């Protein structure tokens, strides 16, 4: 497909205002401010079927309508640029290479929602993004695209860049708000939802960078164009709003050409690897792939015809599309190592607020530590599955979705590759793998 979001990233001046404007940048902004009301823009985005690109895939226009009508006080807009999901770097590309595209989308989103203050929450580990965005904001203020009475429209907008203090949970919308307010990034219990009481106790919208970047294109090219790409709603599922528009896929792992590619929603893993990734690295056989960030679970090589739209991976036992960061693993990868690495990440990043997540992620890591150390037992696999189920399957056991994210790799890896786990345990612990009790304490094994 013709790239849209990444159309200009190869230009040397793509990150400057002049470079952006030379390719039609800010035309949508000017047009909207001159011709459209906020409600018109809201309706346009709603009709387009744009769904949030941050992971949950919630319809963006619908989210905007949750804001209270005729709210007398300020409404805040937070742009979530805390991109911490392993394997994901689509927002980074946009912010580094085409920051004005993101900022135009943000400004349009603020106009639609009535927000006159926007917080661009960016993770600390992205220094170049920060630099480019700082420059871009200065250019916008200098050109009168931000500030008071923008382009004579009466619309006011200030955008503040806020650097996060490095935690996965800062990317969860209420964790982000807490962090923005200067507190520890512990997700908030909902309700109240941010649209009613968010940042600084005011109605707040939190959207992802890539979501915002889509908005100018919807204005420029129209709803029909946007809905012409992607997957139509499932007629058998009234709750499926379909998956429309261009999408950035981060392709990494054992492929010839890793990178960030733009493709329509619904492309399969196989197509992505073959058409964009240049095939498997050194022609080796694929073993598994993560469909959209490590929290989404795992697809086996047999499941590579899984369509990468918002509901596709769910049909293959994964949590969802997530951030569309596809990590491909070839036959050389040990699933024990993969799962250990995944558990290590979630145990490290759990904010620790809810008991099941705090203890469950840590417990699963300790068990995988022991399995890796050659003291695994077959019953450990069932226990790991149970942990995965209790922290992830009983819905509502935690405040945010991190525990779910930690549970899906556990459940997918063990259910889909159980034989490999059993072989590993049998080989590394031939005498004890069948033990049922008692179990040795971990510190007796390797000095934990």
């Amino acid at each position, binding site marked *: 497909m013709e790239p849209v979001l990444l159309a200009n990233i190869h230009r040397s001046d793509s990150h400057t205002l002049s470079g952006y404007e030379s390719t039609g940048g800010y035309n949508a902004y000017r047009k909207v401010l001159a011709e459209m009301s906020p409600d018109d823009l809201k309706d346009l985005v709603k009709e387009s079927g744009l769904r949030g690109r941050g992971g949950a895939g919630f319809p963006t226009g619908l989210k905007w309508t949750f804001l209270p009508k005729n709210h007398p006080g300020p409404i805040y807009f937070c742009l979530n640029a805390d991109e911490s999901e392993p394997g994901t770097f689509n927002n980074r590309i946009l912010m580094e290479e085409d920051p004005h595209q993101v900022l135009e989308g943000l400004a349009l989103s603020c106009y639609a929602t009535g927000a006159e203050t926007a917080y661009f929450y960016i993770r600390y580990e992205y220094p170049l993004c920060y630099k480019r965005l700082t420059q871009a904001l200065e250019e916008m203020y200098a050109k009168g695209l931000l500030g008071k009475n923008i382009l004579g429209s009466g619309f006011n907008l200030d955008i503040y860049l806020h650097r996060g203090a490095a*935690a996965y949970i800062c990317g969860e919308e209420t964790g982000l708000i807490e962090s923005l307010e200067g507190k*520890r990034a512990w997700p908030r*219990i909902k309700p109240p939802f941010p649209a009613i009481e968010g940042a600084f106790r005011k109605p707040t919208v939190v959207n992802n960078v890539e979501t915002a970047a889509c908005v100018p294109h919807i204005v420029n090219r129209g709803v029909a164009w946007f809905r012409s790409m992607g997957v139509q709603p499932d007629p058998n599922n009234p709750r499926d709003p379909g998956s429309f528009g261009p999408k950035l896929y981060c392709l990494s792992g054992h492929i010839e050409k890793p990178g960030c590619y733009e493709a329509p929603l619904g492309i399969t893993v196989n197509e992505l690897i073959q058409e964009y990734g240049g095939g498997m690295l050194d022609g080796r056989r694929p073993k598994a792939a993560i469909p959209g960030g490590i929290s989404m679970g795992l697809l086996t090589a047999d499941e590579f015809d899984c369509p990468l739209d918002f509901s596709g991976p769910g049909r293959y036992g994964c949590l969802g599309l997530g951030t569309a960061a596809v990590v491909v693993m070839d036959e050389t990868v040990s699933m024990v190592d993969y799962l250990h690495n995944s558990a290590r990440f979630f*145990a*490290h*990043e*759990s*904010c*620790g*607020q*809810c*008991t*099941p997540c*705090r*203890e*469950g*992620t*840590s*417990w699963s890591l*300790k*068990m995988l530590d*022991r399995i890796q150390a050659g003291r695994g037992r077959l019953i450990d696999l069932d*226990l790991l599955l149970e942990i995965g189920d*209790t*922290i992830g399957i*009983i*819905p*509502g*056991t*935690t*405040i945010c979705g991190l525990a779910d994210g930690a549970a899906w790799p556990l459940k997918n890896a063990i259910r889909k590759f159980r034989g490999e786990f059993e072989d590993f345990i049998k080989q590394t612990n031939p005498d004890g793998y069948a033990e049922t009790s008692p*179990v*040795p*304490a*971990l*510190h007796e094994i390797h000095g*934990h």
Partner: protein
Amino acid sequence: MSIVIVNGQEIEVGDDEQLNGIEIAERAGLEVPHYCWHPGMSVVASCRMCLVETGRKNPETGEIQMMPKLSPACQTPATDGSVFVTNSEKVKQARAMVEEDLLIRHPIDCPICDKAGECRLQDYHFEHGQGERRADLKPFTSRRRPLGETVTLFVDRCVMCTRCVRFCREISGTSELMVANRGAHEEIDVFPGFPLNNKMSGNVVDLCPVGALGDKDFLYSQRVWFMQTHDHVCDGCSTGCSIHVDENQDHVYRIRPRENPEVNEWWMCDDGRYGWKHVHSPERLTEPMRQIAAEPGKLQPARLEWSQAPDAIDGALRKAGRLAAVLSPHLTVEEAYLLAKYVRSIDPQAVLAVGPVVQVGEPEKYPNGFTIQAEKCPNRRGVETIVNRLGGELLGWDDFVARLEKETFGGVWVSGGYPSAWIDEATAAKFANVKTLIVQDMFRSPLWEKAHFQLPGAASVEREGSYVNHHQRLQSFGWAIRPPAGVMVEGRLYWRLLQRPGMYNGAQLMGEIAREIVDFAAAAPGVPPNGVDLRVNQLA
């Protein structure tokens, strides 16, 4: 009126009531286990022990639609048509999971843990937990560190409910405590150089649902199941916090706040919590004495048997002439009433005065309204009312001392009961001309030395009666411990002097006082545990 359905049972909720799932279940006679929720603080819903199934009943069709997710009961309001299920398999499974998770790295050291016997982790484990321990992790490292002068933290026992952190932010407003680190490495800690030293610090120990926060003062001094708990009222200041006195064999081991929404909610200050040590002081006076004339013109102290004391005192006072009684603000209402009645029974014109009211600094007010009063006595208002109604004029301590210089009193009865020094030599010297001076006190003082009758008095926890606090709330209590041998509680002595039949009975006496003195009328039907507001009649 709203109707909420809890496990199929319809429960009524008043229009002005705001209850959550835990509270509505409690009203239905069910317990929803919880760690992090506390009615006095913000809801964080993080322990996840109170997960229940929730839903709504359609008022028109009567159909009940349940939510697919479990919800924390602490965060779910009980509104009209709300449905709660607290005993389904799904709920039980979730509770068992949380219990198992919490015990992964919590030491099972109940035999040495101070919280044993009142630990929620222990209780909930037996009621809701898994049958076996499946986690094979090193359970604990016994790390302990002091958080301040009063509280010590057993790091491994913490279940991260953050009640203590929220208390310091929301109630004391001092914010000393925080959560350090992340995930399973989280720990409660203080900021470097800023220990937990606020004047309400002891409350975090009561709040802690497990044995993580220990009270240094109580630590390892007593197992809770050996102690008896008595409801009482703090005598540290005129706030008059409702308290529990925990004692074993007439020895107080700790004092804890007793929930009373009208006075102290769930809290008390450290002054009151740790201010009971004088009760067991070796300096306590325990021998009644009288001055006898060993040789003409010279008096000498001699031991007085309690069996003979009432007659001896009564005889001396009846011969003394004009009488006066100083009613200490540490006396209960009932004791003040009896003493006043007694001196008036001998001399109907006897002068009644209120003893010194100790003031220290200014009142200390906390963000939630809790106040440590500057007035360090529990019953000034109660005693003042007695003096006012029975004495004719409200005579304060300074006025009375001034009157001593102008007027001659044949007999003066001074009641003390102060936990610390309350009278100096110069003031005591003004009592030199009193023919019969009776002093009743806990500790020696310049006045004690001059007394003709020296009567050891009781501490607050040894008394039975009522105090009226700063806000005119009268609270009654029974004695928690018996006084040391040799001490007769004031009320009992006055009762005997008045030759009343039977034993001293505070509740019965309060009924009598309420009928006689209109200010106490609100206490006539009996005094409930939270006390009565004496202003009720005035407002009416």
